[in-house]
């Protein structure tokens, strides 16, 4: 337990904070950062060109159709048995749904990058050629290997132990890797085989893929979320891939072999938790007009996620926010003075981040009490191990949250209109301990704590001149700072102009002092 926290952590302060701050976290992060980076995602999550795969599916001419059909039947019966067991054990929470906007977005993307060839045409052609030719099933399956994707040998989506039932729709998921900006990332490759029955020929259909996390059992399924809004269901962050597949030429369409229908970038998906996860994929072919499910298939797979899950994040944020309040008080008390305006700033941060509509009056009062106790602790000279707290935050909080914490602490430092060297030193340490980029920290410092707020205005604190720097290093640093501030001096904002003037004067003095005029 932390030194400062020993008398408090076990008591009302941390308890109240821990109870109430989750609401802060939840309200802020329940939606999770919605990263609108569809530019990259366009290529990452795309409906696989079913037709493209099928066209590439070349059957050897001497194929014995009866052998193939027999093998498929056997496989189908095994799969059918396996699937029903699986279906019993898993309880999907009905996340397969779609909205007009999601469908429109999906269609738009689908059309943008890929040429849609009618599904039924391709399927029928494949079927006919498959029956006419001959070859081993394994060869046929190999023929469906996706281009530009590397399969991992021990990845998810193991082969079905039995043959799929060709009378129904079957799905499986394989793990591949995809190069995105020279970085390899995992992708789920969703494959289908079997039959789809439409009410009539030329029926237009769409494909939906949804994923549920069933690691904690069938009664506690959790949806998988996605970062990109385009692939979310309406206003919720839940993932659902939706793609227009065109018209089925016949009433019954059979996919003779495993056919990849979607590639889903794992980096865009948000699983509930980090580590080994059991995922259930549900693939459905829907009537575009009525949204009726024409065919549906499920499969389970195991994936080892290296990313922090959204439940992990919520848990971590709860903890992080509690620790952040501690850090804020530490900054405030760094100069051994805890100003009322600083305390008010911290309290207001806690209150404004708290979703008041969800917090009971009692909980709020408890929180107030906890904050008051913390104030009393720091006012009586309580010690706080900020380094350890930061180390913990660095482990559990994503970078963006860590920047938020630093910004909060900077706000505390500026609350009383000036920043002392002790406060500044602690802030600098916080940036290091939170593993933040020093240049970014400097930029935040410049914006939040302009030079006229600094109690001590010297080159070390303001400009970052270090005692161990050589003359040449100092000269370069000062030239860089000079170029930067000289371009800001003509700003139309008088406050920026004044700040630039002050910093330029400081740089000139530093140049004279550290570099001299004899270079």
């Amino acid at each position, binding site marked *: 337990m932390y030194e400062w926290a020993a008398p408090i952590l076990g008591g009302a302060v941390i308890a109240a904070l821990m109870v109430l701050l989750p609401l802060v976290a939840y309200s802020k992060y329940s939606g999770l*950062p919605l*990263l*609108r*980076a*569809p*530019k990259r995602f*366009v290529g990452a999550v795309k409906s696989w060109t079913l037709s493209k795969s099928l066209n590439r599916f070349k059957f050897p001419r001497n194929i014995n159709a009866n052998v193939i059909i027999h093998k498929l039947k056997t496989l189908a019966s095994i799969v059918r048995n396996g699937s029903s067991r699986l279906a019993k054990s898993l309880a999907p929470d009905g996340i397969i749904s779609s909205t007009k*906007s999601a469908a*429109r*977005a999906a269609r*738009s*993307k689908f059309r943008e990058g890929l040429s849609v060839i009618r599904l039924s045409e391709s399927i029928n052609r494949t079927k006919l050629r498959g029956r006419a030719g001959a070859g081993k099933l394994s060869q046929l399956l190999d023929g469906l290997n996706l281009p530009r994707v590397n399969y991992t040998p021990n990845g998810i989506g193991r082969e079905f132990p039995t043959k799929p039932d060709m009378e129904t729709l079957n799905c499986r998921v394989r793990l591949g890797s995809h190069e995105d900006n020279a970085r390899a990332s995992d992708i789920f490759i969703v494959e289908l085989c079997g039959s789809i029955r439409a009410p009539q020929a030329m029926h237009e259909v769409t494909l939906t893929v949804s994923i549920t996390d069933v690691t904690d059992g069938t009664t506690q399924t959790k949806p998988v979320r996605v*970062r990109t*809004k*385009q692939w979310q269901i309406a206003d919720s962050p839940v993932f659902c891939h939706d793609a227009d597949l065109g018209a089925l030429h016949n009433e019954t369409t059979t996919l003779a072999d495993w056919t990849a229908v979607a590639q889903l970038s794992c980096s865009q998906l948000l699983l509930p938790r980090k580590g080994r996860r059991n995922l259930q994929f549900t693939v459905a072919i829907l009537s575009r007009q009525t949204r009726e499910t024409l065919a549906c298939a499920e499969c389970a797979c195991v994936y080892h996620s290296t990313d922090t899950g959204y439940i992990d994040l919520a848990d971590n944020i709860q903890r992080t926010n509690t620790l952040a309040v501690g850090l804020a008080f530490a900054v405030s008390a760094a100069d051994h003075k805890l100003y009322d305006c600083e305390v008010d700033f911290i309290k207001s941060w806690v209150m404004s981040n708290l979703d008041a509509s969800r917090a009971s009056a009692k909980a709020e009062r408890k929180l107030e009490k906890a904050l008051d106790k913390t104030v009393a602790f720091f006012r009586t000279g309580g010690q706080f191990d900020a380094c350890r707290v930061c180390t913990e935050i660095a482990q559990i909080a*994503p*970078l*963006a949250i860590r*920047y938020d914490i630093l910004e909060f602490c900077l706000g505390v430092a500026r609350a009383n209109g000036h920043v002392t060297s002790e406060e500044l030193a602690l802030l600098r340490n916080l940036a290091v301990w939170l593993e933040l*980029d020093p240049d970014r920290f400097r*930029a935040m410092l410049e*914006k939040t704590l302009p030079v006229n707020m600094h109690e001590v205005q010297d080159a070390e604190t303001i400009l970052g001149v270090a005692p161990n720097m050589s003359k040449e290093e100092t*000269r370069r640093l*000062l*030239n860089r700072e*000079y*170029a*930067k501030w*000289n*371009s*800001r*001096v*003509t*700003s*139309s*904002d*008088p406050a*920026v102009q004044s700040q630039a*003037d002050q910093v*330029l*004067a400081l*740089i*000139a*003095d530093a*140049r*004279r002092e550290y*570099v001299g*005029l004899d*270079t």
Partner: protein
Amino acid sequence: MGNIVGIDLGTTFSTLAILNAIGKPEIVPNADGERLTPSAIFFDEENPDVIRVGIEAINSRHLNAERSVRWIKRHMGDTDYRKTISGKDWTPAELSALILKKLKEDCSAEHGEICDAVISVPAHFDEVRRRATMDAGTAVGLNVVAIVNEPVAAALYYATTRKVSGKVLVYDLGGGTFDVTIMDVDGQQMDIICSQGDHALGGIDFDRQILEILEQSYRDKFSAELLNCDEDRARYEDEAEDIKKTLSRRPTAKKMLYGPAGSLRAEISREMFEEAISSLIARTDMLVEVALDEAGAQPSEIDKVLLVGGSTRIPLIRERLEKMFGSAPETAVNVDECVALGAALYAGLTMLRDKPDSVSAGIASGLEGINLTDVCNHSYGTICAPVDEETGRRTVQNRIILKKNTPLPCEASQTFYTTYEGQKEVEVTITQGEDTAVEYVNKIATHRFELPEGRPPDCPIKVTFSYDVNQRMHCKFEDIESGRVLQVDFRLDQNGEVEEDNAQQSTEQFESLKVE
């Protein structure tokens, strides 16, 4: 055909040069016979119909500082600055216009009507300050055909009067501003490589250091303040300037200080002065180094250092430059006049390019063969909201499209994307500045660009900025899918119809003013 002139509208002194019949620039002395006119204005209380500009204004300042104005160039573009005289608020552009009126009238009295003029500005002046300068010229009836950077003008004059080739560094330390420009000169072909400037570094800053020494000496001796009113300050500011000039010639300067507690004989040595200005000198050193870095040049690669501006007479500055570059800087050109002379040449070149029919054959022949390639003085960009790769969050930032020091004419494009589904419009902002942080750049225009409805996010919008040799900036925002285009054109003298009306009104107002 009317006269073509170049005007150096300086912080402390202003000068006007005219192109003679054979296209050679000549300084036109003012009505007092002086080649340099102090940039000082005095509003005479006893004779309110006449506004004094020049040496008379300097002398009157000691008697009534409140009704006098100096160093107005430092406030150019400052929208908050006003000098209130007898209930009228004067803007920096209006006050500058009074100086220009004096120069124009003195020149017209001797040479006849002035038609076209180029006014020089420091290289680092932004669009607002350039526009304010141009407005000042237009207000007094000058046809301001262009604005030229002071070091460029100086280098133009230098290169057309001396045989020089190679990399030239123009070191322009004037009364109120400091510019460094590096250029390639090959005969009469001049290519600017880069310019850097410091808006608050010049002769008056050196004077202030001397004044502080004088004040401190008086304080030490009498424990009293030397300066007790604006008139005292005005007088001793001029004394400080004298001391500075003396110290450029002699090792010591002496001055009697008459304060309320008694008189003091102050003696200032060159060493004391150099110590006092060492921070300012450090600033000049840094600016030179930054300019060299930007040009990708080592000091040894500079073939010639050209001194411009009165403050380059300070021995320490020459010594430092000699030490830095390994050879003595070029001082042959008159440092106070070369900017105006070069501006006149620039005016001739601009007229030859834009309206060749209005230039006499003699002038055209005199300017033949001179070719100057200027650069973009600032970076121009737009505000966008990319996703931060590190944090995964959208951050608002300035994205530079047209980089500073790009040779003119130039054009650059970048493609941006809409951020959300159904986005109906984009707020497009044109910025000037070198920072990515929006807080530190100037927003020079903002428009709304309407987009077709019902589209997914990520629709590309191509932004193209171009800058032509006439200092006209064109901005084009193009929605690639729909083909919709928003075009924004800027010119320093064009700000829309309303402002033109104002300019007309302003011209009439200045016509009725008597300036001597």
